[in-house]
């Protein structure tokens, strides 16, 4: 779960990291008017608070010199759509006199058996576009060793005083990441000011949603994300379904992340276009679990046909088939549904589906082909 910049900076500040002294302006007409009273020094940066990346390239950060210009910028940014979202807030910060921009991040990395610290002596750009950064595999947070990072940085950063500051900051970030269940803390750019002071000019903090049981902020953020979602999507999120909307017309109700992607890929291979990634396996594989998935896809005008693809292990397929029977009976939508159920107790499935006039496809290929055919017919 990605935090907005200002939230990430609050977390960094709480961990003793220097961040600019910013003002958060929530999305609210009256607030914009009042910003000017709270800003004492210009120029300032007016920054759109959005979760989607490459905000800078899209004009989401504006420099303004006067109160009037700032209010105009704020209005403009609130009205701009970045990716798929309007800014939920603005962050107004003093414009930093940056001497140098660095890149520093701490992220969970399987190769490191835990965290890795990534450093590049040139920040402010996409890290992939520069030369390979320094990577120090930490492992568990308490395995961070200042001298190991120092050694790793020796070739990339010749300013030893700066290097020591980076080591101290990285140590703090690793500790904060573990303490607050963050999977990534990225500071890009990490600004070096004239006095040598390091300031986090931007912050991208991603938190581990599975730590919600022991972290109230994460729990609240998950609830907030549900709250922001439309009613239909919220129904799915309440069932722990994983949903990513795509631009096709074949709605996919599936189980298991890999299997869902495999079905998406096969739809494309057969000339169709998936409307979503929708993995229903984390929630209850029951009528209660699948009902919101149908509600969401039935209501989505982009979806022309629904493909149900579930291969169950712990999930017993006769139960899934019975849920489908129940849902089909109560369902209002006339969108065609194609079934491919397989796995534990699949031998009982054809009879159950047959009971309401549906047919189970033995092979995923057949089901996908049918769905693609129906979707084309519906266009």
């Amino acid at each position, binding site marked *: 779960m990605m935090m907005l910049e200002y939230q990430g900076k609050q977390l960094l500040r709480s961990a003793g990291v220097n961040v600019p002294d910013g003002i958060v302006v929530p999305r609210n007409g009256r607030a914009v008017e009042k910003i000017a009273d709270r800003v004492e020094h210009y120029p300032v940066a007016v920054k759109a608070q959005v979760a989607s990346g490459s905000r800078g390239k899209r004009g989401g950060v504006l420099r303004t010199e006067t109160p009037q210009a700032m209010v105009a910028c704020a209005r403009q940014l609130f009205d701009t759509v970045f990716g798929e979202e309007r800014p939920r807030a603005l962050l107004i910060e003093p414009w930093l006199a940056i001497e140098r921009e660095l890149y520093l991040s701490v992220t969970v990395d399987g190769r490191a058996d835990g965290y890795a610290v990534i450093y590049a002596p040139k920040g402010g750009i996409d890290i992939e576009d520069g030369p390979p950064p320094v990577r120090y595999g930490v492992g568990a947070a308490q395995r961070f060793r200042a001298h190991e990072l120092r050694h790793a940085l020796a070739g990339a950063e010749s300013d030893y005083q700066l290097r020591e500051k980076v080591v101290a900051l990285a140590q703090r970030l690793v500790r904060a990441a573990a303490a607050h269940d963050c999977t990534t803390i990225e500071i890009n750019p990490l600004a070096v000011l004239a006095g040598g002071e390091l300031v986090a000019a931007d912050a991208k903090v991603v938190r581990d949603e599975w730590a919600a049981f022991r972290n109230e902020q994460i729990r609240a953020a998950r609830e907030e994300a549900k709250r922001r979602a439309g009613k239909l999507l919220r129904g799915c999120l309440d069932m722990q379904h994983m949903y990513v909307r795509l631009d096709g017309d074949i709605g996919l109700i599936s189980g*298991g992340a*890999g299997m869902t992607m495999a079905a998406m890929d096969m739809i494309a291979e057969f000339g169709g276009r998936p409307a979503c990634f929708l993995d229903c396996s984390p929630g209850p594989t029951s009528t209660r679990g699948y009902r919101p998935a149908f509600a969401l896809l039935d209501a989505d005008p982009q979806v022309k046909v629904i493909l149900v693809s579930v291969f169950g292990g712990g999930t017993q397929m006769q139960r899934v088939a019975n849920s489908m029977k129940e849902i089909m009976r109560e369902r209002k939508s006339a969108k065609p549904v194609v079934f491919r159920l397989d796995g534990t107790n699949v031998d009982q499935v054809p009879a159950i589906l047959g009971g309401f006039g549906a047919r189970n496809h033995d092979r995923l290929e057949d089901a996908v082909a049918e769905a693609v055919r129906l979707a084309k017919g519906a266009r």
Partner: protein
Amino acid sequence: MSILLDRGNRVLIQGITGHMGTFFVEDARRYGTQVVAGVSPGREGAEVGGVPVFGSVRAARETTGADTAIVFVPPAAVLGAALEAIEGGCRLVVATADELPVQDAIELRAAARAHSAAFVGPNTPGIISPGKAKLGFMPSFCYGRGPVGVISRSGSLSYECCKRLTLAGIGQSTVIGIGGDPVKGTTAAEALALFHDDPETEALLYLGEIGGSDEDEVAWYAARAEAKPVAALIVGRTAPPGKKMGHAAALIGSRADGHAAKVTLLSDAGVAVAATLTEVIPAMRAALARRPAPAAAYATAPQRS
């Protein structure tokens, strides 16, 4: 032979009195797994399907000689239960739970390394050595005994692929679900090393996806001269960048995370790559066709099913 799991493992179930644990007792035993003990603190003295329940791993091991554990407890309790099993001397511990905080996975991996235990999980259906034993909730009928070692980041996908293998007459030595999380109890590299040393395993099938770095390890293995032949399927060709596709690790965050980059990487390393599910069997056959003659490959004759 097989890896990690065979008829010899003596299995204890942590959380045996729960829904999953109770189901597993019957299902696993039906498959031939030796289920010797359950652990459920405060329920010691009870029985589940004839299996005695203990209050701790230590008590269970002392009485039953259990050496293998499978953990069926809620995510918040997995760390404690799995540490108890790892540090209590179990040589193989499987935790199927998804929704495990990555911090906890990091701790478990470190503990398993420190105790030279094999830890499989989280976010996995488990491990099965077809015809011998299963330790997880995969559908038994999909599997058949044979020469292919399977490593999968994804549960259902492994059922689908193994069913296809079995229907095509290609059996499996062991199928290990390494899980979809970024920090794994057993990595692709470690599973490959185990399969490499297993005489029954003649070729490998790797089921991967976008995101993460496991595919680097598979390519690194496959490129070695002495490697056993490897086939692979990478899913997520149609996944958009920057979105988590269910699994925590299935996210295209950089160019190397993408489907095309991974397919190229593996192909260049000599892996027979299936870009989609429909190509899995042809790719597997291509890999099997490359295996050396058994006499040249092994000092001792491998057992076949």
